[in-house]
């Protein structure tokens, strides 16, 4: 979006402060930190993405809320922050994945999917008349190089993590993860640790209806969401 349709918006709304900060990006990160907690863990044989699904009202049809989304056969993502903004990124991520596949004849690597998203996010910090995206995404997937987990931020930066949390209570979660995550984790272990971590910071009793879980294993390389029954089984199996 170059925004040159009107001279009135031909300048970027994200500008430097004298101290060298980009205020709008910091505010966007604040929006992310207000969002519900999302956790991602990489195991040696896969990735798990977990998020809190807190409904504002019992009248909301829970199944219509989709926070963990598929981006490509081998890549999925979850967000924290403004859901409407994340929908734009998910759509863009899916399209770019297909464009890459048609152009190069193979699935893009997880890093490519993440970097394409960051390119879009960065452009919204330096284009006319637009604001940065109010969400961070955790992008997880499996490619020939193995499983990888990426965080993409409103600033357009990307970080590859072994395990991380974003949104509310992310600091508490990360402290928990630091203690529990080891290099030789299996995907099963990772799912349990992610759910335990969410349980730590969840207000009330954590049930399947309160969370969404997405997994991808190196066995089949296909991203999928766990059903409520599977999540309940996992939660019941936690210490």
């Amino acid at each position, binding site marked *: 979006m170059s925004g040159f349709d009107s001279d009135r918006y031909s300048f970027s709304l994200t500008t430097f402060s004298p101290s060298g900060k980009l205020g709008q990006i910091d505010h966007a990160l604040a929006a992310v930190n207000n969002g519900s907690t999302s956790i991602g863990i990489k195991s040696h044989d896969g990735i798990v993405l977990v998020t809190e699904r807190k409904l504002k009202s019992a009248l909301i049809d829970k199944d219509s809320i*989709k926070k963990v989304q*598929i981006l490509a056969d081998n890549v999925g993502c979850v967000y924290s922050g403004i859901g409407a903004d994340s929908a734009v990124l998910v*759509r863009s991520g*899916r*399209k770019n994945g*297909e464009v890459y*596949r*048609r152009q190069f004849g193979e699935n893009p690597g997880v890093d490519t999917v993440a970097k394409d998203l960051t390119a879009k996010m960065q452009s919204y910090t330096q284009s006319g008349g637009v604001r940065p995206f109010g969400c961070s995404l955790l992008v997880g997937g499996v490619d020939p190089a193995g499983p990888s987990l990426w965080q993409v931020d409103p600033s357009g930066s990307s970080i590859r993590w072994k395990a991380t949390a974003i949104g509310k209570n992310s600091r508490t979660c990360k402290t928990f993860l630091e203690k529990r995550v080891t290099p030789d984790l299996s995907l099963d272990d990772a799912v349990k640790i992610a759910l335990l971590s969410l349980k730590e910071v969840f207000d009330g009793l954590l049930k399947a209806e309160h969370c969404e879980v997405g997994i991808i294993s190196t066995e089949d390389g296909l991203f999928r969401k766990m059903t409520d029954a599977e999540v309940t089984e996992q939660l019941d199996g936690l210490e």
Partner: protein
Amino acid sequence: MPKQDTPQQVLAGLTSKNQFTKTGTTICGVICKNGVVLGADTRSTAGDIVMDKNCEKIHYIAPNIYCCGAGTAADTEYTTELISSQCKLHRYRTDRDTRVATAKTMLTRHLFQYQGHVSAALVLGGVDVLGPHLHTIYPHGSTDTLPFVAMGSGSLAAISMLEQGDADHQGWRPNMEVEEAVDLVKRAIHAGIFNDMGSGSNVDICVITKDEAGKIAADYRRNTDIANPRKYRRDVPYKLPATRLVEVNGDMDM
């Protein structure tokens, strides 16, 4: 009509035709109980020369939808790949299985846009939430919806098998069992392989069905019938010291 070559030109191996790789082709499809069966031969030609003795003419569109292609090989390949990609994005967006009508509409809109210059004649078949569907799509963008169809240069031979059958076999009838339908399609493709110069080699089949539980599965049977096997095959004649024999091609006519 392309300019006719003189016998002298043909003998000299020179032709004025722009001979891009086409699929002479026999493709067909039938609706059966709980599903559709698609079939195709495997010969692709450039003029009078067989370019590929075992090409794949049944293209993937979606897990529950496949499409046979006749006409210019590049056109059928690219068009089906394009629509397959668009259907995938559509599935992500809608969180539903692709419907055959959707794929059909995308294909026809594309072909109509190119006013017949995209030379792709397709047999589109699949099963979705509304049941089994079978269509033919012509290069200009028109469609037919029928219980059995055939396209390509061998379509006349194939359709006679589907319409009428022969002395020992019946043609198409409603509510055929899946394996009966597979047999019928094989015979129709055979008719094309043996009676049409533009078609030959082997038979590929794709069976798409929905079971009682409502689960849709596609069974892509590549080279289900090797109608023209290579009868004599020379053994690897000598052993080169530094090379390691990894694999010898099987019975495929390659």
